[in-house]
């Protein structure tokens, strides 16, 4: 079913199509603004905007759970994490000269062309015979009402039918946290470190967290550190 045939279908009313097109256009505008922007703070904020707009688009596609996650993780937490990482870097990025961008441009053009080529093989939006809607997916939708008896099929699939996958995801999140704790420590000064944000020299003892951390160095290490 082509886009035009879909537009003629009574289910896909014109307002919905218009909404989708304007949200997607907004995404493209934000993406170009992201590329053109030089201020890192603006880039981080625009990434949050991008996530929020795509969350709105997911809602219009009836994928509320995905939209919820995108809004909470993409627009919320990752923006904050990028901000706290940004404080350790310079505030502005220097433009890359044109001749060094051709390689990247080639990669983007090739990847984009490959994706456009693959679009033809994708099932139409809402196709009942698509792999996502046939086979086991139909089973989940049909049996949730009698086997689990909760209204939200997504939760039933995530927590019960696909409990193994979700367990794997929790372990992945756990290992991500473990990795950050092992590398950085909770007080950010697990090791002795120094940084130079905006030309201002800071180290583990001049950072505000230094006061809350216990000094576990031996007297020799202290003498070495001060030297």
């Amino acid at each position, binding site marked *: 079913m082509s886009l035009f045939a879909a537009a003629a279908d009574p289910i896909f009313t014109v307002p919905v199509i218009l909404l989708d097109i304007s949200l997607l256009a907004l995404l493209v505008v934000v993406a170009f603004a992201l590329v053109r922007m030089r201020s890192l703070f603006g880039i981080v904020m625009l990434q949050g905007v991008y996530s929020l707009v795509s969350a709105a688009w997911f809602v219009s596609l009836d994928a*509320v759970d995905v939209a919820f996650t995108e809004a909470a993780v993409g627009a919320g937490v990752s923006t904050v994490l990028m901000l706290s990482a940004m404080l350790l870097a310079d505030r502005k990025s220097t433009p890359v000269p044109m001749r060094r961008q051709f390689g990247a441009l080639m990669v983007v053009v090739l990847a984009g062309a490959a994706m456009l080529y693959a679009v033809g093989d994708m099932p139409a939006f809402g196709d009942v015979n698509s792999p996502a809607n046939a086979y086991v997916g139909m089973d989940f939708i049909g049996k949730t009402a009698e086997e689990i008896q909760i209204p*939200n099929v997504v939760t039933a699939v995530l927590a019960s039918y696909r409990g193994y996958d979700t367990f794997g995801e*929790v372990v992945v999140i756990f290992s991500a946290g473990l990795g950050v704790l092992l590398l950085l420590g909770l007080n950010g000064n697990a090791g002795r470190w120094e940084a130079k944000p905006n030309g201002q020299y800071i180290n583990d003892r001049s950072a505000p967290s230094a006061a809350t951390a216990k000094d576990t160095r031996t007297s020799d290490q202290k003498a070495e550190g001060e030297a």
Partner: protein
Amino acid sequence: MTDPETTPVADKFGNDPHVLLRVIAKFLIPLIALFAFYVQFHGDYGPGGGFQAGVILAASVILYALIFGLAEAKKAFPPRLIRYGMTLGVILYGGTGILNFILGGEFLNYSNLGKDAVAGQHYGILAVELGVLTTVTTVMIAIFYAFGSRQPETSAEDW
């Protein structure tokens, strides 16, 4: 220009350019945390679940840290809780699976947790979602604490 000594309010708020932000955040943070629990326990009926609820709950702590400073946030949510929280969540999830083993079922098949299969499924989903919530919340806060502690407080000119 107001003189801090002649205006009594200035003693408390005069040097704080973010007083509006702090007052509104103080009002919003409990609501955000409450919403996280709504998302958690309403996940069976509407969109949401442990992962989203965990991120929202972590966001309320992170917002507190952004507005009132990291030291205050570490008083409200001590870093030592993080180590217990992230392991407890995984243990709760995996432990539910092991419990199914012991009760004579398959790993993560909750059917034998309750008096019938449906009740068992409900208990099982509740337990594993709680595990997801604990791990996600603490890991998100851990990552924020770890990165946030590495630099001096942001000065107003930086923005």
